[in-house]
């Protein structure tokens, strides 16, 4: 086919099919995924009994709020990543605040904890629950988000997938943190981060596989 013929063919079909913008679909995808994660959470985990009282301590509240912040920023970034040529904007710098604050909390806890208790707090008692739970709760959210992002046009599918992974893991970790009773940043700044990084890697792989176009 000649290029000019292709152009006249395409021109007959100028208006895009009426469909919700990618951002709207992504919110829907995340919402569906979150319902899935919530069902898993309620079936297997459930909130800790003293959650409301514990949240009065900012160090405990941070273990829910930091992942939520990561979720919001990474979601915005992944949505920008699926529009070709879009600038990453402020969110790309702001998102680094999350690991910085996690690191700061870790250092603070290291200093504040008596030397004899540091290792105990660091290892906690629930690593074998924490890591898989964060990843499993992320999966439905990641699935919903990747599905929605397929309507976009990521020029770097792996990066877009990794950002989707970060967003999903952020939301899943915030949910998991309401079950987890390990309140020392020595524990959560380490093991939550590890779980989140793993999910981001999974997102990058999924992006390379399903976000090509």
């Amino acid at each position: 086919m000649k290029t000019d013929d292709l152009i006249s063919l395409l021109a007959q079909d100028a208006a895009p099919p009426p469909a919700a913008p990618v951002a709207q679909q992504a919110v829907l995808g995340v919402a569906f995924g979150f319902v899935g994660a919530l069902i898993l959470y309620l079936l297997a985990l459930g909130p800790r009994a003293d959650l409301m009282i514990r949240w009065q301590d900012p160090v405990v509240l941070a273990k829910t709020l930091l992942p939520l912040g990561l979720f919001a920023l990474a979601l915005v970034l992944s949505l920008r990543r699926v529009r070709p040529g879009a600038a990453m904007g402020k969110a790309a710098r702001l998102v680094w605040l999350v690991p910085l604050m996690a690191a700061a909390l870790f250092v603070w806890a290291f200093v504040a904890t008596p030397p004899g208790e540091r290792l105990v707090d660091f290892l906690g008692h629930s690593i074998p629950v924490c890591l898989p739970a964060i990843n499993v709760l992320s999966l439905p959210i990641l699935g919903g988000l990747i599905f929605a992002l397929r309507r976009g046009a990521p020029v770097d599918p792996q990066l877009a997938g990794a950002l989707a992974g970060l967003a999903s893991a952020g939301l899943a970790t915030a949910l998991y943190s309401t079950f987890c009773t390990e309140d020392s940043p020595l524990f959560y700044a380490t093991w939550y981060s590890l779980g989140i990084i793993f999910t981001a890697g999974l997102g990058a792989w999924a992006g390379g596989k399903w976000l090509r176009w």
Partner: protein
Amino acid sequence: MPDRNDRWSDLLRRGLRGDGAAYGAFLGEIAPVIRGIVRARTGGAEDAEDIVQEVLLAVHAKRHTWREDEPVTPWLYAIARYKAADAGRRRGRQGPQVPIHDLAEILPEEAGEATAARDLSVLLDRIDDRSARIVRAMGVEGRSAAEVGAEMNMTDGAVRVAYHRALVRLKDLAEGDAHPHLDKTS
């Protein structure tokens, strides 16, 4: 003279609201620029015009990802670069600029070469039934697109497109198998 970006933004904006003439003008004006990008990126490949068409199709398929308040050129160039790189990778894997039509003749041999244990029929099991049926009819039994189309209730054009796509996928599958195999034996 208004900036190219403003002009294209205006044409595309009108196109997205259903103005086919404006959209046609937009595609017509970007085509030579895309051709330039593709030539520069693929080192003047013989099938550059195919890649230009792929970019135009991609621009069309993803036109909803452009936001009217953003400049159109970065959006357009990002799509052109992505598609040119993608085409370059695919063609790189396939060897130097083999026109897709020629694959038909070499495919059975190459598939046999890829791993001794696999032959074309094993590869055909890994693609969807409809494509496999078309490849068998045209590539193995040597029947015409018109004949196959009549049988499968498709136009000859659609059969040819499906056939070419299936061949590209088979080629990828054959090569995907070849590499782990080489690693094991070396």
